[in-house]
């Protein structure tokens, strides 16, 4: 037996509480605004309830939730929406100046992220922000590991170019 509890053993409410932050954050990073991210997260959890908690473990449930969330985000992005830039959350860092610089960099990075094609953006969010493996991202996006690697590499190159152009 592994230490991971079977998902049937935990209630739906607990499942929501354990995954809501990750799902909401992923939706926000892909969509760029909290209002849409909330709608997507809400819909993902309603679908989870309909689907049931018959997953072998929590990792399986998370993979399923990520897949649903990314697909909902892709559907939403198909209808043209504005990439709303909301202020980033505070982080307790050393000096106030360093915090301001970092916040500014993150804000610019977030804006640059918004210029990526949606699937590339989803790949970067899942791989680099959420820290999933290439295989997991490939399974969530329904593509091969090679495609994910190339999407992430291309996206990072694109982000670097944009951020360096802005800095000049």
């Amino acid at each position, binding site marked *: 037996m592994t230490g991971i509890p079977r998902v049937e053993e935990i209630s739906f409410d607990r499942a929501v509480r354990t995954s809501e*932050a990750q799902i909401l954050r992923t939706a926000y990073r892909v969509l760029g605004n*909290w209002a849409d991210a909330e709608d997507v997260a809400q819909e993902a959890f309603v679908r989870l309830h309909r689907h049931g908690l018959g997953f072998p473990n929590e990792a399986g449930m998370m993979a399923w939730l990520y897949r649903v969330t990314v697909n909902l985000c892709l559907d939403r992005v198909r209808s043209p929406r504005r990439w709303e830039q909301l202020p980033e959350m505070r982080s307790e860092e050393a000096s106030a100046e360093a915090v301001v610089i970092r916040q500014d960099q993150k804000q610019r990075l977030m804006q640059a992220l918004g210029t990526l094609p949606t699937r590339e953006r989803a790949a970067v969010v899942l791989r680099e922000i959420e820290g999933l493996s290439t295989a997991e991202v490939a399974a969530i996006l329904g593509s091969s590991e090679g495609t994910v690697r190339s999407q992430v590499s291309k996206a990072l190159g694109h982000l*670097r170019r944009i951020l360096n152009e802005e*800095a000049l």
Partner: protein
Amino acid sequence: MTEDRIRELLREMHDEPVPADSLARVRVSVGERMQRRSHARWIWLPWSIAAVAVAIVCVGMVLLPRKPAPVQKAGPAVVREQSIAREVMSPPKVVKPAGYRRANKLSVKPSPPPADPVLIRIETPDPDVVILLVGDGG
């Protein structure tokens, strides 16, 4: 900015807390939608039970007339048997003149004149056994 720096910033984004009010809104909306779903299920439950009951009654009505059918078929047979029995049991009501039928038959197909029956008696060595052969004489 290098790619490593970009990666570092992206990883930092993972640790940033999600706004509490957003999380609360998602929780409340999910709860409300779950409640609405369960309400809808309870509203539809009596209707679905009624629909199933109606369907069962309809099927029953279609199937029921097929059972008495053999009884209806057996009906004429019984009547016929009864009539035959009545014929056998009841004494002849009207005695028709003997010539009436014969005259009728003769008009259709003339029958040969009746002949005397022939009786052949064969005696066997056993005095108790006698063989009798009866012929119509025609």
